[in-house]
């Protein structure tokens, strides 16, 4: 059965079509989940894509997380379903409490759109199950608020429980412990700042994002085996 991916759309989201395109390129099917929906319509996985939900006004993700669709996403996550937040989606998942910590302004106080080299830190996650530990991936970043922070206890736990999924080889934004992506304790909810969908075609300069997008599709079949 083909994997069905729901891609959340808030007013201000802008990467939803890009994610859908790559999911379809990989043989999955994808559909938009408008922020006012209160059910996910039976999708296997959810991607919260990049953009500027509600303009990122007040704080990134602050308003978006109250959307009806986020309640449904939280239920899906609680049942072990894969949920991946990319860039603004990562910020939304943190605000919603589905992932620990928060994302602040880049240390250089500038928006950054450029390639980043990432190191895969664990393959035990809905985003990296097809990758290899230690693998380097060239995937672009595109954000102003990608500087990951959390309190020391949370960081200790993230490290101890192998919840840091991706690290920057060369930290572009001041993120704590070079963190580019993390997962929850259940390993089914993952957030990352870089944009794997933008590294999906040799014509665009890199295909290194495909392994991550494929992992999301692969996670679709494994929902029930995900630990709670």
């Amino acid at each position, binding site marked *: 059965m083909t994997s069905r991916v729901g891609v959340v759309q808030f007013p201000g989201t802008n990467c939803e079509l890009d994610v859908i395109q790559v999911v379809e390129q990989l043989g999955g099917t994808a559909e938009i989940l408008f922020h006012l929906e209160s059910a996910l319509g039976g999708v296997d996985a959810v991607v919260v894509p990049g953009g500027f939900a509600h303009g990122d006004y*007040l*704080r990134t993700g*602050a*308003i978006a997380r*109250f959307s009806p669709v986020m309640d449904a996403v939280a239920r899906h996550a609680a049942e072990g379903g894969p949920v991946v937040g990319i860039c603004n989606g990562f910020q939304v998942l*943190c*605000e919603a409490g589905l992932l*620990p*910590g*928060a994302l*602040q*302004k*880049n*240390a250089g*106080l500038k928006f950054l759109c450029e390639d980043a080299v990432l190191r895969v830190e664990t393959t035990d996650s809905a985003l990296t199950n097809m990758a290899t530990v230690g693998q380097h991936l060239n995937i672009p970043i595109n954000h102003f608020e990608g*500087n990951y*922070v*959390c*309190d*020391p206890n949370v960081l200790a736990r993230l490290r101890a429980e192998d919840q840091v999924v991706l690290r920057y080889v060369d930290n572009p934004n*001041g993120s704590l412990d070079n963190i580019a992506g993390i997962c929850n304790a259940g390993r089914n909810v993952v957030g990352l700042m870089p944009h794997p969908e933008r590294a999906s075609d040799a014509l665009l300069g890199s295909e290194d994002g495909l392994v991550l997008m494929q992992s999301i599709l692969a996670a679709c079949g494994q929902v029930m085996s995900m630990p709670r």
Partner: protein
Amino acid sequence: MMFSVTVQVTHLPGILDPVGATVERALPALGYTNVSQVHVGKTIRLMIDAENVEAARAQCEEMCQRLLANPVIEAFDISIDDVVPA
């Protein structure tokens, strides 16, 4: 009754404030060498229509916890400055 509310949102101690840190680093170059501990946060002002000041404060606390601040990294301080008859 109408209340005029000011909420100040600041970073929790121990959480880095990238904007404040940058401003602090910038000041000496402008000739201000006597400034320290710069912190940049948010001020939110609003009018709230509530029964009494306690109700107004309780609702503001809740709005801050839920929306106006992110308790993971931010602290907030509410002041209900003055009361305007509705």
